[in-house]
């Protein structure tokens, strides 16, 4: 254990980066606060009391462990699809049927993996003697987790949300307000997650002494990429055990959607040293590959330094960050976790993108086949599976992380999948409000 800690310190703490990615490129004002957070976290990491407390709230409040499910119907359909694609000569030599497993973080309290990190950081916040949480949110799942935990731990919460996301994820805004959090709409810049991060960070800068910035993704200045990843790693640790139990071996392939990168890193990290386990991140392909219509940073990775960290960003030749688009607010972000950029550079994690259309298809598929309505973010992975099994012909045992459930997206999915009836419903609702 001691040796492991040593290696960790050497690799990350000295330079505060993953290879060339990461760092802490922030105004001097923030250095003291980041130092304090780092010291507090490193202490907590080895403090058995803290770890016990975290484990306890993850169970009693969060509902961990989350289940691992064999997606039998989906597996059968995809196996058939794979067979139907073969030429008649090859059809005789049958491969092993596909086995798709779902790690279901949507079961976690507040509906997504975000709670794992929020509970961890809220405990750190109290350890530092602070009583206010500030956070950004895109889809609203992180904000919802922060608002809930703040209520539970008697902390104040301010949630910044881009105007675009505020309205497309209004059910979550309502829920956050109901929980006692203050939700602040951000109308600057691209009016999305990126601008919510800017606004939250600035609020933090103005209120450093009393406030903890509870960043929801594995990015931003060090130590955030590290501590968010660590708090989310509970996903992978559990999944690894459950998968071994289910199949007696480790899977061939792990798949997760990638916005900032918190669910994918939490899922992948405990498998990183298992060389035989391939890892695939799915980015938002949006409407097209035209600039402004997607959020696929790995299509043409461009190195930059934005929001306190060095990684790949969707930006122009001048280094100005460019607008993004995705049907899912949680993937609609121009930067990516520095550790994922590093793992991509090392060839350890590969990336593909799925379009808005594929995401909707994925949402419908998992609902129909397995009775699980996923959030649009992770629906990207399900929608891409027909392509994924083609790209990875040797992978028969696959695990997908379903990072959240789809309740928050009803207004988006209904618009596409049930338009006329939904319009009628809204009309009636409006009438009843009069």
């Amino acid at each position, binding site marked *: 254990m001691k040796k492991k800690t040593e290696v960790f310190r050497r690799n990350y703490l000295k330079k505060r980066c993953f290879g060339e990615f990461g760092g*802490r490129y922030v105004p001097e004002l923030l250095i003291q606060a980041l130092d304090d957070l780092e010291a507090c976290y490193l202490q907590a990491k080895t403090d058995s009391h803290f770890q016990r407390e975290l484990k306890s709230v993850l169970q009693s409040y969060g509902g961990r462990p989350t289940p691992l499910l064999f997606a039998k119907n989906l597996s059968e359909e995809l196996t058939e699809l794979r067979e139907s694609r073969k030429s008649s000569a090859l059809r005789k030599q049958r491969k092993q049927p596909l086995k798709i497993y779902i790690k279901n973080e949507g079961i976690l309290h507040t509906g997504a993996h975000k709670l794992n990190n929020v509970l961890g950081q809220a405990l750190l916040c109290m350890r530092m003697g602070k009583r206010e949480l500030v956070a950004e949110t895109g889809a609203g799942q992180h904000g919802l987790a922060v608002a809930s935990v703040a209520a539970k731990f008697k902390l104040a919460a301010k949630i910044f949300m881009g105007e675009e996301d505020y309205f497309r994820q209004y059910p979550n805004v309502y829920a956050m307000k109901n929980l006692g959090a203050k939700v602040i709409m951000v109308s600057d810049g691209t009016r999305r997650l990126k601008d919510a991060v800017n606004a939250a960070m600035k609020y933090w800068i103005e209120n450093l002494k009393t406030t903890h910035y509870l960043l929801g993704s594995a990015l931003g200045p060090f130590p955030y990429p590290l501590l968010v990843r660590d708090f989310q790693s509970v996903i992978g640790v559990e999944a690894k055990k459950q998968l071994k139990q289910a199949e007696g071996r480790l899977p061939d392939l792990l798949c997760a959607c990638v916005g900032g990168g918190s669910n994918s890193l939490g899922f992948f990290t405990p498998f990183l040293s298992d060389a035989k386990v391939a890892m695939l991140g799915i980015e938002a392909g949006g409407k097209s590959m035209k600039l402004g219509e997607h959020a696929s940073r790995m299509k043409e990775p461009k190195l930059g330094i934005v929001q306190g960290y060095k990684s790949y960003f969707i930006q122009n030749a001048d280094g100005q960050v460019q607008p993004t688009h995705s049907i899912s607010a949680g993937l609609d972000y121009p930067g990516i976790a520095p550790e994922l950029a590093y793992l991509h550079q090392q060839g350890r994690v590969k990336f593909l993108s799925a379009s808005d259309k594929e995401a909707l298809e994925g949402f419908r598929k998992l609902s129909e086949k397995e009775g699980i309505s996923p959030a649009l973010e992770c629906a990207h992975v399900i929608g891409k599976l027909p392509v994924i099994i083609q790209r990875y012909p040797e992978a028969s045992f696959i695990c997908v992380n379903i990072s959240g459930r789809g309740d928050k997206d009803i207004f988006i999915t209904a618009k596409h999948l049930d338009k006329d009836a939904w319009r009628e419903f809204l009309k009636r609702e409006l009438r009843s409000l009069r």
Partner: protein
Amino acid sequence: MKNKFDIKFSAAKAEGKKIQLMAHMLAGYPSVSVNKETAWAMEQAGADYLELQLPFSDPLADGPVIMRGNHHALKKNFSLEKGFRLIEDLASGQNMPIFVMSYYNLPFVFGLEKFMGILEQVGVSGVIIPDIPFDDESEEYIQRMSAFKLHAALVISPGTSSKRLKAIGKKASGFVYTTLRTGITGAKQTLSHEGLTQFKKIRRAFPKKLALAAGFGISRPEHVKALEGKVDIAVIGSKLILLTVERGPLAVGEFISSIVSSIVS
């Protein structure tokens, strides 16, 4: 290393000037032509230095006024190329030594050496990059800048520890910029107590001759007056931008004149 800034700074000191003024402007906001008129008005009114900020999509240390100015300039297609042309025009059109303020991503993506080479060529005195905090790599950064005869002005804040101040004081080049509060840029009615009481700690940690500038929140002549004897340079930002946009370059000139006469009196 000595450049235009050092010559002007020591001359003003020798004259017995109590406090010098650095006036901030945002390139391309509201337009390049207004930028040029404003620089002229600033110099006529007696500003000593010009801080020219290049717009960036995500200006982390800036409050609403300057941030929205950044977005406005970019929406109107302000590019780095136009920025370099403006710097060149301003450097040849007036005599205030220029410091270019930019977030790190712009020189990083453009190529740091190429970027600084252009600044050197047109006679810029230094750069202020707020998102490169002082760390192990600062020495290398400062040396690389000085190869281009540019000062890399470091930024500190009221919360910076004495230990860090000492280290920063040793490496600093040109001047050190301290913020008058722990916060983001923006004009305020009053200057914060923590901002005004930090100078003893700073002076104790810094070498005697190191120039100290202060900004963040300055919006009235009496604010500058309050800094007399405490810092060498007062930096005025958001207030000037507001004036430029709401009332035009001449109002900026009038405001700076009112500060200059309050210093003299």
